[in-house]
C-alpha cells in the first residue's frame, strides 16, 4: 500500500502525528545526553596537549554542526514551501530558525570560552568562528524579516527567498573567510584538528550530536504545532479542538 504522504502534509494530520512523536524523541534525546555526558567526562581520556579544557568540544562541535545542519534543513523546507506553496513546509522552516539560532549562539559562546584557555583571548578571528558568527546573523536576518511581515503568506515566501539566498552564500562566506583568515594570520591551531582523535572522544562527540539532533526535533515539532495552531485558528478542526470534541 502506498503511504499517501500528502495526507501528512496537511497541517491538521501533521499536528496529531507530531503530537504522538514528541514523547519518543524527547526520551531518545535524554538517553543520548546522559550517555554522551558520561563519555565526555568519564570515559574520554585527558588530552595530553590541552589537558581537560578540550572537554568543551563535546558541546561546541555538536552545536556548530547543528547550527549549520539546521540552516540547510530550514532553507530546504523554505524552498519547498516557496516552490509548492505548501503552507506546512513554510511553517516548519519558521519553526527551525530559533533553534538553529540558539545553536549558533551556543557554538559561538562555547568557542569563545574554549579559546580563552587555549589562546588567552575570548574572541579569536578563526575562520570557523567567524563564519559561525555570520551564520548567526543570517538566522537573525531570517527571523527579523519574518517578524516584520504581518501577512503570513508573504512572510513565508519572503523568508524563503532570504533563506535560499543565504544558503547559496554560506559556502562563499566560509571560503572567503578561510582565505581572509589564512591571508592575515597564517594557519592558526584550528579548534577541531587536535592530534588524532581518540575513539572515545569521537564517539562522545557523535552521541552528543545525536542528543542535540533529537532535542532539535522535539523543539521544532513543538514550535511547528504552535505555529499551526496560530495560523489555523479559524479552521474547522481547531475550533473542534476548542470544544474538546476531538478526543
Amino acid at each position, binding site marked *: 500500500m502506498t503511504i499517501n504522504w500528502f495526507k501528512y502534509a496537511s497541517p491538521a494530520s501533521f499536528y496529531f502525528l507530531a503530537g504522538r512523536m514528541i514523547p519518543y524523541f524527547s526520551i531518545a534525546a535524554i538517553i543520548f545526553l546522559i550517555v554522551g555526558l558520561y563519555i565526555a*567526562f568519564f570515559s574520554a*581520556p*585527558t588530552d595530553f596537549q590541552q589537558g581537560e579544557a578540550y572537554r568543551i568540544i563535546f*558541546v561546541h562541535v555538536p552545536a556548530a554542526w547543528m547550527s549549520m545542519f539546521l540552516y540547510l534543513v530550514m532553507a530546504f523546507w523554505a524552498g519547498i514551501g516557496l516552490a509548492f506553496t505548501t503552507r506546512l513546509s513554510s511553517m516548519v522552516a519558521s519553526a527551525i530558525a530559533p533553534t538553529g539560532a540558539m545553536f549558533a549562539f551556543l557554538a559561538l559562546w*562555547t568557542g569563545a*570560552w574554549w579559546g580563552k584557555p587555549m589562546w588567552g583571548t575570548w574572541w579569536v578571528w578563526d575562520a570557523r568562528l567567524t563564519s559561525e558568527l555570520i551564520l548567526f546573523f543570517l538566522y537573525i536576518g531570517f527571523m527579523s524579516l519574518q517578524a516584520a511581515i504581518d501577512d503570513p503568506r508573504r512572510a513565508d515566501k519572503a523568508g524563503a527567498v532570504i533563506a535560499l539566498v543565504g544558503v547559496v552564500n554560506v559556502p562563499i562566506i566560509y571560503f572567503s573567510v578561510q582565505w581572509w583568515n589564512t591571508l592575515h594570520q597564517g594557519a592558526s591551531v584550528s579548534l577541531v584538528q587536535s592530534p588524532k582523535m581518540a575513539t572515545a572522544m569521537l564517539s562522545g562527540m557523535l552521541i552528543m550530536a545525536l542528543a542535540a539532533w533529537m532535542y532539535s526535533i522535539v523543539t521544532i515539532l*513543538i*514550535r511547528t504545532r504552535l505555529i499551526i495552531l496560530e495560523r489555523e485558528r479559524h479552521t474547522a478542526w481547531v475550533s473542534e479542538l476548542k470544544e*474538546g470534541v476531538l*478526543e
Partner: protein
Amino acid sequence: MKWESMSDFFAMGGYGLYVWGSYLVAMLCIIGEIVLIRIRKRTLYKHLGLRRKSILRGEK
C-alpha cells in the same frame, strides 16, 4: 578516566571555569528555549481560549 575526588572533578585540571562555564551556558540555552516555547504555548492557549488539557496533545 577515573577522577580522584569530587573536587578534582570540578577543578577539571585547572580549567573548571571554562569547562563548567560552557556547559552551564549550554544548559541555560536549552532550558531557556524550552521555557520560551512554554510561555509561547501558554499565551497562545489563553489567546485561543483553549483549555490546557492533554486533549491538545492529541493523546487518547
